[in-house]
């Protein structure tokens, strides 16, 4: 995952690229291809398109490598750049999605094949994220991509943490309204140990 990546390796490769060694960029692509493709996937849920968008992000990173001011880590810079690329790509050609109210209703738990029903239900919720309004969709996408780290998501979006938290809460609220079973399942959890963080996030 991103945190485990070697900052020294990134720095060394970037310096070599800036010195004119094109091949050194391969190290950067090798280390970050997984995270960037996964991030793009969460934006569009289309494997082919996710790879195209990730490739475009790498190309933009290559062009703008000299613009990395090294005040933040390479990963922060790369993720922010990638988020910009994905956002503008999806503005040009939006991901095929349906309005939130038309998102597929998950199959009920009484289905014979419970595992399959569960998977369908989860996929419906994940698909519904794409139907969220843009301002709520991106915080939700990036928060879960960054393993539920609000600070990392806010750095990637270039927004204050408070704004990201508020939009995240609104995004979750919209999802719960669309899929009431999510609220029902969460009720026992919310009443037990989750008070402090819940207050912050909601």
């Amino acid at each position, binding site marked *: *995952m991103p945190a485990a990546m070697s900052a020294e390796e990134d720095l060394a490769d970037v310096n070599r690229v800036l010195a004119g060694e*094109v*091949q050194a*960029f*391969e190290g950067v*692509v*090798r280390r970050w*291809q*997984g995270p960037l*493709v*996964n991030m793009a*996937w*969460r934006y569009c849920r289309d*494997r082919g398109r*996710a*790879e195209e968008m*990730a*490739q475009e992000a*790498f*190309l933009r990173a*290559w*062009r703008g490598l000299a613009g990395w001011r090294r005040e933040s880590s390479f990963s922060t810079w790369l993720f922010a750049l990638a988020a910009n690329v994905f956002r503008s790509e999806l503005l040009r050609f939006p991901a095929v999605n349906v309005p939130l109210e038309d998102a597929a209703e998950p199959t009920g738990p009484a289905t014979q094949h419970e595992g399959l029903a569960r998977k369908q239900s*989860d996929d419906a*919720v*994940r698909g519904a*994220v794409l139907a969220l309004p843009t301002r709520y969709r991106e915080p*939700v996408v990036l928060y*879960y*991509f960054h*393993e*539920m780290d609000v600070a990392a998501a806010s750095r990637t979006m270039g927004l204050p943490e408070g704004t990201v938290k508020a939009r995240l809460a609104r995004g*979750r609220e919209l*999802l*719960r309204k669309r899929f009431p*079973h*999510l*609220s029902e*399942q*969460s*009720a026992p*959890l*919310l009443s037990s*140990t*989750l008070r*402090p*963080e*819940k207050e912050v*996030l909601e």
Partner: protein
Amino acid sequence: MKSNLNPHTDHGAIDPILGDEGELIPSSGFLAATMERVRDEAAVPKPIPFPWLRALPGIVVVVAIIGWCGCELARVGLANAREISFTQLHLTAATGRALEPAGWVAAALAVSLLSWLFAQRLAGRSGLL
């Protein structure tokens, strides 16, 4: 992606669903394809920068001329504006009669244009042009 969720950030059923999606492995050709595009980009010679220093005198002259024209237009326009009175905007019957021939002039010009276009077309077909 992450598999063990932090209970303090768990928001019921949403967190396990969106937080634990599994990891997508990039296709085997992704790295090679990306590096090929990067190499192609690196092989393209850098665009020649615009010669700002050489163009600067010309730009200054053009800007000065435009500025001078603007000032002159404003000066002349302001001088004439004082002479204009709103009563002049109402066309008298005499002025209306004077404008009547203008319509005939426009019609004559249109006929001339059409005949010129027709002649061009004929000449084109005959192979003269």
